[in-house]
């Protein structure tokens, strides 16, 4: 099998054996080479590269968007090409083009929703962009700092360039100190991402159970709002959302609005101490009943590790398949850790 070497503008290169009978793009993607592509039919030109030995051939029967002069210079379309012999293929963009993006954003609002919860709203700066799946998080670097902390988005991809985070403010911490001491509207923060395998699976045929503790509500709101904007019938949805005390209670209005907007959503809000009307005393795991669960259910859990552990055990006991329980653990330690590699 011929050996392909794919070289990107940042110096990164990938070497793999390419099946001469396979379409080169398919072989390269399977080998993890980050080639940009779109139409897969030779017409858009996104996957163009330069073939040094001209061993990447394109079938004569397929018309492509390349000019004959470009072909003569070794330009090839990965998606219709097949590699006949060893060759080096160069791409004139960095290998990170398809990886996490980095963007500046302007702070639009800093709202204290509880003694230790801030809702931070921001807008991506002119010319900057990134995207994410509902449930994922970004690294947030305050102005003047060089490192960042990870926070889940409570807004949806559809709301971009607007972003919203629900942030638990700790007694001490990089972003916590920033929010408490000096954050102001119009500040420029730096965001990178997106990161995280906690993502909504977009399976509208299954009943969904959401269990959220504290600011673990953020990715759940993102998922709920994205789900609401999806086409077709909505499945039964249950949100069990818990806070610990009246001082740390927040989000009552946000979850009540979702219940107004989505007829299939049931909300149970819990408070460990000091529960009032509309709240159930206790924790969000205790309010999940057998009647809430079907064989088809999927579950999204987000909150502190003990809650995740308890919710997982409870859902397994009630019959939710282990592979359909998705969880994101929120810990102070995780949030204060600098993220370098996902």
């Amino acid at each position, binding site marked *: 099998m011929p050996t392909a070497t794919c070289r990107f503008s940042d110096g990164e290169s990938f070497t793999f054996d390419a099946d001469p009978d396979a379409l080169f793009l398919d072989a390269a993607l399977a080998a993890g080479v980050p080639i940009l592509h779109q139409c897969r*039919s030779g017409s858009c030109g996104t996957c163009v590269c330069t073939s040094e030995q001209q061993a990447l051939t394109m079938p004569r029967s397929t018309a492509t968007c390349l000019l004959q002069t470009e072909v003569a210079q070794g330009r090839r379309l990965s998606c219709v090409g097949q590699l006949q012999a060893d060759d080096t293929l160069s791409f004139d963009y960095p290998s990170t083009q398809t990886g996490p993006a980095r963007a*500046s954003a*302007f702070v*639009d*609002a800093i*709202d204290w929703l509880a003694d230790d919860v801030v809702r931070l*709203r*921001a*807008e*991506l*700066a*002119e*010319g*900057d962009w990134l995207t994410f799946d509902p449930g994922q998080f970004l690294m947030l670097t305050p102005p003047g700092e060089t490192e960042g902390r990870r926070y889940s988005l409570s*807004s949806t991809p559809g*709301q971009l*360039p*607007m*972003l*919203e985070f629900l942030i638990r403010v700790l007694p001490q911490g990089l972003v916590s100190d920033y929010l408490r001491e000096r954050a102001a*509207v119009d500040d*420029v923060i730096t965001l990178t991402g997106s990161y995280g395998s906690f993502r909504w699976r977009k399976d509208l045929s299954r009943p969904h159970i959401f269990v959220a503790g504290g600011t673990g509500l953020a990715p759940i709101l993102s998922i709920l709002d994205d789900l*609401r*904007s*999806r*086409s*077709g*019938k909505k499945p039964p949805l249950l949100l069990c959302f818990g806070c610990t005390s009246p001082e740390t209670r927040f989000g009552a*209005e*946000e979850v009540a*609005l979702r219940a*107004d*907007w*989505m*007829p299939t959503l049931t909300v149970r809000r819990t408070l460990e101490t000091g529960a009032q009307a509309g709240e159930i005393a206790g924790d969000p795991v205790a309010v999940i009943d057998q009647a809430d669960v079907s064989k088809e259910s999927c579950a999204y859990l987000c909150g502190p590790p003990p809650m995740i552990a308890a919710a997982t055990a409870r859902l397994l006991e009630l019959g939710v398949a282990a592979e359909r329980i998705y969880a994101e653990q929120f810990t102070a330690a995780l949030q204060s850790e600098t993220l370098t590699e996902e």
Partner: protein
Amino acid sequence: MSEEKPVRRRAGGARGADNGRANDARTQSQYQPYKDAEWGFINHWYPALFSGELAEDEVEGIQICGVQIVLRRAGGRVFALKDQCIHRGVRLSAKPMCFNKETISCWYHGFTYNLESGNLDTIVGNPDDKLIDNTRLMTYPVEEVAGMIFVFVRDDEFPDEDVPPLSEDLPIRFPESSERFPHPLWPASPGLLDEEVVALGIHRTGEANWRIACENGFDNAHILVHKDNTIVQANNWVLPLGIRPASDDCITPIEEDGGPKGMMQWLFTDRWEPILENEELGIKVEGVNSRLYRTSVVLPGVLFVENWPEEHIAQYEWYVPITDDTYEYWEVLVKHCPSEKDAKDFRYRFDTVYQPLALRGFNDCDLHAREAMQDFYADGSGWEEEQLVDTDVSAIMWRKLASRHNRGIAQPPRGAQGRVKASSIRLKNVSEGRSPGYYVEKIEDLNNHNRTKVTERR
């Protein structure tokens, strides 16, 4: 390498600090989804054409919720497809080309689609292309009742199996709802889906957002605009200056599973108080003939006026979003006409009285009023600035119900008419006296473009 590019805020203001949705200090209101529905609610049934507008083999192009739709009647049946060729976006309806009863072809490059499935069956001049049978054009379910063609306008992901029956997007029916919504003053109102019903009406384009238009229809304070209407004065009708809510059960939500979603207003019962006089201004309603009616509204914005404009008739209205600033205004009267003579008499009265004096005269006042309100809401600020009063309970209730039960918020369309407000084609059409509207602009004279100044050298 340090990046020294300046970091700037996004231009455009509409998404700036004070106007955008996510970055605003305001709490998201209870009817935020309704406020988001500038282009309408998608995944609902809307009237598209009267049956008489689409004879066998005819093709017509329209736009609803920003979705361009082409309709063709073949073998008596009406088919609806996206009016935007997958190849390069040409509207098939601009110059209809059909080689058989099963397909419609794009007149530009010959992409030929199956009417039933939307499948790309062939390409006229490229019959072996590998794209054939591998792609399709979106199709829209169609129902034809009482001389009206309804289309289920959906987004590209909405599955066939989730398409609800038309009756879920039409007003509640009588007598099946007579027990729940009795009215002491008239018998069961006729409905479009009834047998022996005749539906007569008109539709035309209005220049306002569809929500402004829709809220006008069941606004019980708006009847002041009708005070001086000819039909009111000629008949000496008692049309109140306004109708105030007099009880907290003046409106009943309609939210039953499997049925339409909306609300009923208990007009001309003791739950509403008609205002017939304003002493301070010395105004009094002088009419002597009562003109009692009742309004209800259901998604996606269908007004049902029972006992209007005369006994045993009901008036339907739709405010079908075309773009975010135009809507197709439908006014349809329905009446049970068991005999040919009944139907003939109804038609005669429609032509001589209802159309000129009610659907035009009376309702033209509403068109004026909606246009007058449009600028206040056009930039989005009106929804925040409006100061509502107790008669506006109807609008608030409707906004909440619509936020809860809509099947989707239409997104600003891609590549469709009206998204770019000042395109050169639009400006040229306007300068030639053709307003942005509902129907496609058809190519009429093949050999004569005749729309641009021609410079010659002879």
